[in-house]
């Protein structure tokens, strides 16, 4: 891996983030809606603010966002504040900053998506590898087939069906939320941890079941091509044991393209994660986002969109840069 490759990928990353920032900047400015005025008018009609508060807010917003300046100047200000990591202030939960709101929500989302993505990746790849391996027992191979059919079902719909059958019909799991309403949130008490866990099972299951089919299918395809490779035949003729061939010669090589697939799947993972959270009422990024949508809290919406884009694009480039560590052929090429 050469240093120019790394630099080229990093420049690409900057371009992606810049494109995302530019799109999120211009779309709302081209629309007829003015989020600040809309929000403030809403508050004024509700009558919760005295007029001095309102004036102070209008003034602070105008200076903070420079809404009176020309569009080009606003754009450069915006890009500049982004570069400093400043995403602005929430309109709905003023004076909390967008970054604070994201910080509150991210641990839930990160935990859920990290666990489910890794589990789904491992389960899907193992099932797919076993399904394509000619010497695996018949029942295991048939076991993998129905998972391929799951491919057409997005995690959100899977979540709905699980909610209905498991939570509503069988009453085996709660119907939503991150923890029971009667319990005191305290991360050091075991009772609370168990409660959170029981609320996380269904969202996690719907994400795993909704994504595992794709891994099974692509791994089965990769497996079929890999087992025809000469080095697998050679390993067999050397008299190596079945497990060694399966693990070191077949699985390891077949999984390499899947790692690239994982990077490409990240956008879909985050997207479905956001919507699944919303369905189950978890206090993650998804709920923050939909609350922001419901309340016209535009700066939070754009902040979240940018945050997720940066996270996904960085992870994608990260996987790409890590790839040579996994595959020596790329390293030496």
């Amino acid at each position, binding site marked *: 891996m050469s240093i120019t490759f790394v630099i080229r990928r990093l420049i690409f990353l900057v371009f992606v983030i810049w494109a995302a920032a530019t799109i999120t900047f211009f779309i709302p400015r081209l629309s007829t*809606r003015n989020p600040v005025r809309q929000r403030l008018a809403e508050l004024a009609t509700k009558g919760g603010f005295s007029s001095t508060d309102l004036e102070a807010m209008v003034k602070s917003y105008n200076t903070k966002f420079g809404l009176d300046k020309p569009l080009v100047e606003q754009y450069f200000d915006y890009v500049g504040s982004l570069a400093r990591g400043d995403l602005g202030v929430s309109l709905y939960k003023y004076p909390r900053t967008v970054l604070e709101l994201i910080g509150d929500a991210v641990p839930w989302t990160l935990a859920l998506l990290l666990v489910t993505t890794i589990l789904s990746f491992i389960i899907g790849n193992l099932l797919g590898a076993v399904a394509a391996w000619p010497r695996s027992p018949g029942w295991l191979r048939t076991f993998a087939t129905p998972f391929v059919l799951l491919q057409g079902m997005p995690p959100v719909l899977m979540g709905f069906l699980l909610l209905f059958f498991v939570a509503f019909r069988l009453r085996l799991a709660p119907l939503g939320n991150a923890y029971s309403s009667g319990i005191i949130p305290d991360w050091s008490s075991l009772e609370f941890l168990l409660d959170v866990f029981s609320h996380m099972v269904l969202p996690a299951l719907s994400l795993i079941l909704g994504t595992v089919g794709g891994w099974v299918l692509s791994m089965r395809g990769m497996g079929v091509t890999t087992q025809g490779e000469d080095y697998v035949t050679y390993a067999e003729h050397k008299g190596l044991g079945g497990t060694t061939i399966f693990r070191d010669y077949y699985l390891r090589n077949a999984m390499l393209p899947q790692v690239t697939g994982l990077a490409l799947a990240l956008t879909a993972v985050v997207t479905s994660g956001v919507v699944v959270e919303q369905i189950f009422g978890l206090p993650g990024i998804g709920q923050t986002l939909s609350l922001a949508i419901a309340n016209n809290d535009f700066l939070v919406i754009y902040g979240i969109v940018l945050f997720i884009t940066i996270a996904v694009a960085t992870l994608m480039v990260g996987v790409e840069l890590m790839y040579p560590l996994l595959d020596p052929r790329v390293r030496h090429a």
Partner: protein
Amino acid sequence: MATTFPPTTVTIRPVAEVQQPSRTTLVFRYFRRNKSLLIGLIILFILIAFTVVGQLVINPDNAYPLSVRSKQPPSAQYPFGTDFFGRDLLAAMVLGLWQTALIGVLAGGIGTFVGVVLGFISAYFGGLLDAGIKGICQILTPIPAFLIQVVLAGSLDKRDVTVYTMAFVVVLLAWMGPTLVIRSQVLTMKERQFVSVAKLSGMGDLGIIFREILPNLLPFIVAAFVTQVFVAQIAALYLAVLGLGPLREPLLGNIIWAAQTQSAFFNGWWWWPLEPALAMVLILGSLALIIMGLDEFANPRVRRSE
């Protein structure tokens, strides 16, 4: 030693005419082999029949709020039940299925069309144009399109959101996939001999594109179209589930969103969110099966892996 061969009498019997199976038999045989395509098409046909026949039977007004008694479980009078807002869910599902399909076909169709045009331009003419189109596609791909769609739909005035603007919002970020697919296909096809022959025989660029390359790409274009409809369908569903759809319309995702905001499961109105969710499962399932089937049809290399 000279041997004389006995004169052989070869009677040339008229060869029994080779029975070429009729077109329908061939199609039938292919479907028997490609089961996922068959099952997918059957489910799709049933869904289309449901919404087309349904629209002749139901009263479309009942698909909107305050038209029937609310919160009725499925019964003889309301086979699908009614919801909290007083919509007959049978009417809502018939209309919603139609609108959902419309969004998918519109967004998928436009996305594929743009993709085919850009893919052709990019691959056929190459050079700076190709670098530009490819670069834009590559930069836009890592950006989660759904989130940009959220920003876009959120920026629209709620009154402006209709089924058509939904399709438009979805398609704005759904043309990169087909562009890259068609581009790579045209790139390989450009090097084939029949294209060189056409070029040497003095055929113009447009003639080669429309008469030589396009017909050969048709299976890929059809596959790209169905994939695009599938993608658009999921994007529209997600937007609607977050409450960004045309709120008045009984779009399937909107029904799910409405049920979710009224905590339908908590209140025991299970039929309300379940019916649109199952309908979405059928739509997406049939499309996924058709995509798998078309993959085999368009790309015989996949057949070997079975």
